[in-house]
């Protein structure tokens, strides 16, 4: 789902960098400082897990594919800013070392997948949690996936309005091509993964879990 290089013009990538980079640096200082050292092993493990599940390509009917994001779990366990920093790290590693996702679009990808999605999921989780944590976790992850996908669709649509040479796909085709897999396959799997991982982590009661990182 994360965008490659060449799909967005500097008109969009530069403002996204201007927002994402300072926010990520500020959040990293606050959430990953010495006072949050106890949570780092769990955070590192869950970030590595998010990296792994993002590399697993899930074929979708219609000849395309999708993948999970996996950082909504971090937003539910800690907060959306922690998820944002972890997802930004995953995206940087993927783009720089493995060529998956673009370098110029890192700001857009980080804001869409790392901040907006987990933030929406976290809000849903807070709202529905009284009804039951499991249902809330599943729905939160599903909503987070839709929010991230909708953000990417919105950015591409905006790019087409600004300069269609960067992304020539028809908006209706692109929206259907991205939202349908997200609403069905990716959203449900993300919900299932988050629910399963959250249940296992609650049972394991690991040190540093559920503790504010800073």
């Amino acid at each position, binding site marked *: 789902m994360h965008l490659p290089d060449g799909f967005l013009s500097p008109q969009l990538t530069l403002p996204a960098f201007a927002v994402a980079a300072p926010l990520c640096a500020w959040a990293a200082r606050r959430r990953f400082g*010495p006072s949050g*050292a106890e949570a780092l092993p769990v955070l590192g*493990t869950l970030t590595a*897990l998010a990296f792994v599940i993002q590399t697993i*390509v899930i074929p979708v009917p219609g000849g395309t594919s999708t993948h999970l994001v996996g950082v909504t779990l971090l937003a539910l366990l800690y907060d959306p800013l922690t998820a944002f920093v972890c997802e930004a790290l*995953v995206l940087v590693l993927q783009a720089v070392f*493995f060529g998956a996702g673009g370098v110029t679009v890192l700001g857009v990808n980080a804001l869409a997948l790392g901040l907006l999605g987990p933030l929406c999921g976290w809000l849903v989780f807070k709202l529905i949690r009284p009804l039951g944590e499991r249902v809330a976790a599943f729905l939160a992850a599903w909503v987070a996936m839709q929010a991230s996908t909708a953000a990417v669709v919105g950015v591409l649509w905006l790019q087409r309005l600004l300069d269609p040479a960067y992304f020539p796909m028809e908006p209706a085709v692109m929206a259907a*091509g991205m939202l349908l897999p997200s609403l069905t396959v990716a959203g449900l799997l993300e919900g299932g993964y988050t629910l399963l991982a959250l249940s296992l982590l609650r049972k394991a009661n690991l040190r540093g879990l559920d503790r504010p990182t800073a």
Partner: protein
Amino acid sequence: MRVLALVVALAAPRSVPVVALAALLAVPVVALAALLAVPVVVQAHEVLHEVRPGGAVALKAFEPGGEVLADAPYQVWSPADPGSPWQTGRTDRAGWLSFVPAVPGSWRVKVVEASGHGLDVLIDTATPAPPPAPAGDPGAAFVLRPLLGALLIGALFGGLVLLYRKKARR
């Protein structure tokens, strides 16, 4: 031509200029003679073709898992005119596209898929292409990439933990 003029003069009414009629009848005769003499003219509506093996650049777009980007829109830009696409089209069912570089240099190829996936690469046609590499093993990439990524993240977080512990001891 004299015979033709004589025939026309005998057959035509007196009011019609003999020379004009002779010229009018001479046109199809001359045209037919030209057609027979120059066969190329007959082929004016035919589309010719030229086969140049090895003259084209072929590119296959596929995802790390091996899924090809079939029937995906693509654009090709010439280094001589980066402002407007040199060629547009759709990849075939196996994810391939091809173009013939008219000038040497870096040709830009962009493949876009509806799912937001795609690629935007520069292909240098000035240098001779290396021999085709053996097909990569998707299974190896499937295992190596997540493994390396997880190791990098583990090293980063582990380094932070060690650093903070060292600071705490001081």
